[in-house]
């Protein structure tokens, strides 16, 4: 019964969409780290994407609301900061949904060190989500939300967004 409740909760969370990238569920995004059945109460462990992501509180409310609506409550959400969220946690299914939505999905995150930033650098080629060409250029490392960068496809001339690896 307990296992069933947890499984149903995971199913429900697969339907709760990210408010800023509504192509993805919070499960696709990889921010749901655990669902724990405490008997009376269900605990959902979430890891925030960016320190200043304004969607964090909204996501928490949507998650709890969806669980209540399915009769799986009472539930509470807890925040787990470590390990830090990375785009590597976005599921393959999530990356496919991003591409279908017109956002170039993130590539793998390169190992992080305090290696000096290369002043003249070569960005890995980002494929255009519309025509697939890798002849693209970055317009800005920052986009409409903290998690995205703005690009332009030189082949088909369409602008697009890229979910940047972090």
């Amino acid at each position: 019964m307990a296992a069933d409740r947890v499984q149903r909760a995971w199913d429900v969370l697969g339907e709760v969409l990210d408010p800023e990238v509504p192509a993805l569920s919070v499960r696709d995004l990889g921010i749901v780290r655990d669902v724990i059945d405490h008997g009376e109460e269900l605990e959902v462990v979430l890891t925030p994407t960016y320190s200043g992501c304004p969607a964090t509180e909204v996501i928490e409310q949507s998650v709890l609301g969806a669980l209540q609506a399915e009769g799986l409550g009472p539930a509470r959400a807890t925040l787990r900061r470590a390990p830090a969220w990375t785009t590597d946690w976005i599921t393959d299914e999530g990356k496919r949904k991003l591409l279908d939505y017109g956002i170039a999905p993130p590539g793998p995150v390169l190992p992080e060190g305090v290696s000096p930033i290369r002043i003249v650098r070569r960005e890995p080629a980002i494929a255009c989500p519309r025509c697939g060409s890798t002849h693209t250029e970055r317009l800005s490392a920052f986009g409409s939300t903290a998690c995205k960068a703005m690009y332009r496809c030189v082949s088909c001339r369409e602008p697009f967004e890229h979910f940047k690896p972090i």
Partner: protein
Amino acid sequence: MSAASIQLKNDPAVQYLLRIGDTALVLGQRLAEWTGHAPQLEEDIALANMALDLVGQARAVLTRAGQLDGHGYDEDQLAFLREERDFRNVTLVELPRGDFAFTVLRNAMMASFFRLLWDSLKHSSDEELAAIAGKAVKEARYHQQHAFDWVVRLGQGTDESLRRLRTALDQLWPYTAELFSEDEVDEQAGASGLGPRWADLSDPWDAQMAELLGEAGLEIPKGTPFVSAGKRGVHSEHMGFLLAEMQYLQRAYPGGVW
């Protein structure tokens, strides 16, 4: 009518956290001022995004500072109800935003500093601070890349862009000494494992600045005996105006929420 001010205890660990949180908060406030005023839409968005990251980092660190202080103050009370003398940000970040050259050069200085600081704080003896740092270090990397790109572009751009960058460097450089000045707060943090002594970040920071400024065609100005003292609560004449704007809502409507 106004809300009563609060003060945190003079504990070195709390003070160390306030230095980090307040520096991120005040730089975030200065960057947010560019919203609607940047030279291009892309830069407007980039600066606002970085402000959002910095304010987010500040929220987390100030929340932790409030917990260690033990009076039960939250992030909002810390940001909006402390007075000028109780803010512990370095003076560098409170200077008015200046022109775009001034802003991107200061961002380059601060992103390099923050990246070194967060990277070291990943190993903090305080688990919460270590967790905050694990996230923030990745954000600082994007900020650094953005700022470095612009500094090189302006340095290698036109005579006018180089002139502006050089002016900005002369204005900013004297305030960088404070980042690495030592005192008992720094000493205790290093000894307890809470975080690095900021003085120890000086060598790698200098090396990064030398490489960046060399690429941009600028020389590092000579050092001067001047050391600002924002992190001890002695601020420039600009800080009061910044706080007046940032805090006005909570001061005018105490306890107001969205």
